[in-house]
């Protein structure tokens, strides 16, 4: 069977000493930073990206993937122990996880999150391995018109499923697309919006935007809030293992969460956060068994389901990236950047041209998930210690790593000026209540969209109807329109706002 053979290739790559080490380092760093509240996975990956430049491409991507799911995992630890979501995807874990910790059941809560994540990670990896090849086949049938429509669908999907105002999110995408236009136009050689600054003719580095907006912007926003007292349930973590009663309740929640997360992760804009929200909502709808703690007061299902879902979602969100070359969320947009730095053009050809990289990455995800559970349950004490590190030590360190990171990207001090400017812009976004993630997505997709639009219109001799006369393209655009219409329907609109406000 192909799948088995492919996976064995993958494991052959992933099980080399070097790659195991990088996978381990990635998981460890990811968890370490994920545990610290206030630094999301986007900032984490952007910050650690320069550390992977010197590595071979496979090792670099394995490490970055490790950082991503490590950060996801670390976020849940913070959520349970400190009542602060380390990542946006653990927002719902806070509700029941923290209540469990307050009742002295932090151990089982952490274990439930860990076991759920591991199980979901395994399933997600298998789905990724099984669905990637057929999807790649489909992708090869895509022409420029289909790609353009697919990206449109992806971008619309990303805003529909994101929180906050729809119009603002779309405007942010357009802003991202426009920022992506800065630099030399590949076709005409014209330097656009570069104001005769030589550095700008190369375009704006995505690391600069990511670190400025997500790193500096967030720090300034955090610092402007009053100093909050963090309460850590450090001493109370005893007895990690859930009881057999807990296991009985966890299992169906875990399965539901995994199924939901795997499906939503593939969708553009879906990924980890939405999966977690949806999984929690579904658990809340199910009937409570007699003797079960109600939701919101420390129900183990309320921890297990969203954690399974967000981990499954974070695995399957690699599918659009690896098969179509289209990032479904901001983290994957960073992965595109990382691949480009290593001279790999993401897209369907990766699987055939770089099978080691493709299958090695997939296999390493499973290994990474295994490492996380082996690592993290015993190391929980260390993470708890980390939680007590005060923010006044953290933020200068983050500023430093961002500054070193951007300088190290091109060894050019120009990027340090730019990251400062984008830091301010990021704070302005925060004050104006605009979500920055769609901006990054648009920024990465901008040049690709223009190129595909150009080719599509060149082939059709300037006829825009090509996007609706080609069947696949028409379907994709129709899906985008349907998504928009659904979200704008009053009933759904209210529900959507409710879903992101409540909880």
């Amino acid at each position: 069977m192909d799948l088995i053979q492919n996976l064995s290739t993958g494991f052959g790559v992933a099980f080399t000493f070097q790659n195991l080490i990088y996978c381990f380092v990635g998981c460890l760093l990811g968890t370490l930073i994920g545990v610290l509240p206030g630094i999301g996975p986007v900032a984490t990956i952007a910050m650690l990206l320069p550390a992977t430049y010197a590595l071979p491409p496979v090792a670099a991507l394995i490490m970055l993937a490790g950082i991503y799911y490590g950060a996801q995992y670390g976020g849940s630890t913070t959520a349970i122990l400190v009542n602060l979501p380390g990542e946006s995807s653990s927002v719902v874990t806070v509700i029941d996880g923290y209540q469990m910790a307050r009742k002295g059941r932090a151990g089982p809560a952490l274990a439930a999150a860990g076991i759920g994540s591991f199980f979901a990670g395994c399933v997600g990896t298998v789905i990724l391995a099984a669905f990637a090849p057929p999807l790649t086949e489909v992708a090869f049938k895509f022409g420029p018109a289909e790609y353009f429509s697919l990206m449109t669908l992806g971008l619309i999907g990303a805003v529909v499923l994101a929180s906050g105002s729809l119009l603002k999110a779309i405007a942010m995408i357009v802003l991202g697309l426009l920022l992506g236009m800065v630099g030399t136009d590949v076709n005409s050689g014209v330097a656009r919006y570069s104001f005769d600054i030589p550095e700008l003719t190369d375009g704006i580095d995505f690391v600069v935007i990511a670190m400025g907006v997500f790193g500096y912007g967030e720090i300034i926003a955090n610092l402007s809030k009053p100093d909050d007292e963090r309460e850590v349930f450090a001493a109370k973590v005893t007895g990690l293992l859930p009881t057999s009663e807990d296991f009985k309740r966890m299992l169906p929640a875990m399965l539901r969460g995994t199924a939901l997360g795997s499906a939503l992760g593939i969708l553009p804009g879906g990924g980890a956060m939405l999966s977690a929200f949806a999984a929690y909502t579904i658990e809340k709808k199910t009937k409570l068994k007699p003797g079960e703690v109600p939701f919101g007061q420390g129900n183990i299902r309320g921890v297990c389901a969203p954690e399974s879902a967000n981990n499954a979602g974070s695995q399957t969100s690699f599918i659009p990236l690896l098969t179509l070359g289209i990032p479904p969320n901001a983290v994957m947009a960073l992965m595109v950047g990382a691949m480009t730095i290593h001279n790999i053009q993401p897209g369907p050809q990766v699987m055939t041209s770089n099978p080691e990289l493709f299958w090695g990455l997939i296999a390493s995800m499973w290994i990474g998930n295994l490492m996380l559970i082996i690592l993290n349950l015993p190391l929980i004490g260390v993470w708890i210690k980390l939680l007590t590190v005060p923010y006044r030590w953290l933020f200068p360190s983050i500023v430093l790593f961002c500054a070193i990171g951007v300088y190290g990207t091109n060894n050019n001090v120009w990027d340090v000026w730019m990251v400062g400017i984008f830091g301010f812009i990021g704070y302005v976004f925060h004050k104006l209540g605009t979500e920055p993630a769609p901006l990054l997505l648009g920024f990465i997709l901008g040049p690709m969209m223009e190129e595909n639009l150009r080719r599509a219109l060149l082939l059709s001799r300037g006829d825009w109807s090509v996007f609706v006369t080609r069947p696949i393209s028409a379907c994709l655009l129709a899906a985008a329109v349907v998504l928009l219409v659904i979200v704008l329907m009053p009933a759904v609109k209210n529900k959507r706002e409710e879903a992101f406000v409540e909880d």
Partner: protein
Amino acid sequence: MKIKSQKDFFSGLMFLAVGLAFAIGASNYTIGTGARMGPGYFPLILGVLMAILGAAICVGGLTKGPEGGDKIGKWAWRQVFFILAANFAFGILLVGVPAVGIPQFGLIIAIYALVFIASLGGHSFNFKETAILATVLAVGSYFAFVWALNLQFPVWPSFIAG
């Protein structure tokens, strides 16, 4: 007319202005036709689209929601200043600015400057603690980035290392 949602109103204004700026900029480049897109074609479409979206958001901010909802609130200028100043000081000290006669001070001094300036933006400032933090970070960064990862940084001031 009272603004209902300040956040929406001003973000709309921002999108409108930036969209127009990009669109006007695009008109300086060859626009071309659909079949032969010039460098200005796609940016012009996007700029106009963003300006329209911005205007719509702006109007929404004026009309939708309760009176005085969604205020922007106070700006944290002090924090903005210190964080950005720390960043710029790092860049200036790391490689120097020959144009105005600032020599290259290198990574270690730049780290101390960054940590001290950034810490001033925090809630409380403690000299001794900051000095320890800066030292730890300087030593750690030296080993992690220069020694282990072999990234190319000017480490010491040019007038010492030569």
